[in-house]
């Protein structure tokens, strides 16, 4: 079948990117699902819904005790992990529960990326770094522009009631993603569309430097409709994070941009788009008004990557 014109495909990509879950909403829903599953809600809720009922299912007895235990174990494990990690040095560590209560994960990441060198060391505690239901970007609910007015309705009320006991998103074990991914083949068509990025131009990296080769090559993939269910690939997730960071940067929201970049650093310490991340971080530092530091880091970047396509962009960073 004849594929669509590039213009048509671009329009479709724009349409697709509209109305996606905000990071805050994603995080909220993921956490609610996690809690309901943890409380043994999955089975009964599924039954109830399958029967067409929308009432909240009965809570299993002893759920709170189980949650408490799980939460404490996760906190303990993550605390060990965090202590070993170079990413989050804690000069004066408060109690885990207290820290969990008063500092949102994105704030921690954000301050971290603001402090860290542009090319950060790989995360030591990577294995303990992600929740099964972790959001793409943990963000505070208040920051969500499209958040609905009822983040915790009756069915997800445990979230509000027991914030400290519940395992936090970045403190649980990481998914066995690569294995599960390998089970599902996918076609080019699906990869292209699934990533939800504009097909051409692929990504505006907010710089005259060329975008990474991957999206451009993908953009030319013909639109053939063949079979193959798609898992998302690391490169796609990397792209998605960087794209969001650049969107926030263009909107002047360097804080959110940094939090996306921090998430990228944290999830893909040795990712394929590390250089692009570095450049985005430099741009965010400029937006933040920290030109001196941005230029200092830019010099380090150029020393570390003399042949980088971004070198020229980085050379004139923070200049009007």
């Amino acid at each position: 079948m004849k594929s669509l014109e590039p213009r048509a495909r671009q329009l479709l990509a724009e349409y697709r990117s509209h109305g996606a879950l905000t990071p805050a909403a994603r995080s909220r829903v993921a956490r609610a699902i996690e809690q309901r599953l943890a409380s043994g809600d999955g089975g009964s809720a599924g039954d109830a819904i399958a029967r067409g009922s929308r009432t909240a299912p009965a809570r299993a007895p002893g759920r709170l005790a189980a949650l408490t235990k799980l939460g404490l174990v996760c906190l303990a494990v993550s605390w060990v992990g965090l202590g070993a990690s170079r990413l989050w040095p804690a000069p004066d560590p408060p109690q885990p529960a207290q820290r969990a209560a008063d500092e949102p994960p994105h704030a921690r990441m954000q301050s971290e990326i603001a402090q860290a060198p542009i090319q950060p060391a790989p995360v030591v505690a990577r294995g303990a770094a992600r929740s099964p239901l972790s959001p793409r970007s943990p963000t505070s609910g208040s920051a969500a522009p499209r958040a609905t007015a009822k983040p915790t309705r009756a069915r997800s009320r445990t979230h509000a009631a027991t914030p400290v006991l519940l395992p936090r998103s970045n403190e649980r074990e990481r998914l066995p993603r690569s294995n599960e991914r390998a089970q599902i083949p996918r076609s080019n068509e699906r990869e292209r569309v699934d990533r939800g990025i504009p097909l051409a131009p692929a990504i505006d990296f907010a710089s005259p430097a060329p975008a990474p080769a991957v999206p451009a090559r993908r953009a030319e993939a013909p639109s053939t409709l063949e079979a193959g269910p798609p898992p998302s690939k690391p490169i796609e997730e990397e792209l998605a994070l960087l794209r969001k960071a650049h969107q926030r940067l263009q909107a002047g929201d360097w804080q959110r941009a940094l939090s996306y970049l921090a998430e990228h650093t944290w999830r893909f310490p040795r990712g394929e788009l590390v250089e692009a991340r570095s450049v985005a971080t430099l741009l965010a530092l400029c937006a933040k008004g920290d030109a001196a530091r941005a230029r200092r880091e830019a010099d380090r970047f150029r020393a570390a990557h003399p042949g980088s396509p971004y070198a020229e962009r980085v050379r004139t960073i923070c200049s009007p």
Partner: protein
Amino acid sequence: MRAVRKETELTAERRERHARVAQLFEQHADFVLRLLRRFGTPEIECEDALQEVFLIVARKLAEYEERGGMRAWLFAIARQVGSDARRASIRRERRHRGLFVFEIADDDPHATLERNQAVRFLHAFLAQIEPRQAEVFYLAEVEGMSAPEIAAALEVKLNTVYSRLRLARERFERALRRIGDGRPL
């Protein structure tokens, strides 16, 4: 002792299932959300409906068979949940018009002007063409589903999918050209 071990195994199995659900959520949350909207779930209900979809996924994962693919399965669940979230009278009406609801959306102040234009154009286009073609076009071109997946999701023949898609694509490109010429859709 045996009871303890059994409990541990159970927990491990549950943990594995939860991890799988989490992975599916991460991969498909946006897809399911868009479908829920397409099925007419009111915006305010969408997050709850999204939760429900993935709780059903968790519950039925063990029985899930790789027939039409994961997304065809998610489609079926989203359709059920989305339908529940919509009033029965509207549902009855829609049965004659096709499954999806394409309404012209209000401007989203957070979106760029360009994207708004794309959204408005596509909404208008999808609302205007034959509903069954719109469904197939939406699933193929917006969601990137394969023709076999769409056939499984909509429970129609593969050839039907192809012919609807071909017609819709032709119309889409014609509509785009007309827009380019400054004529109405």
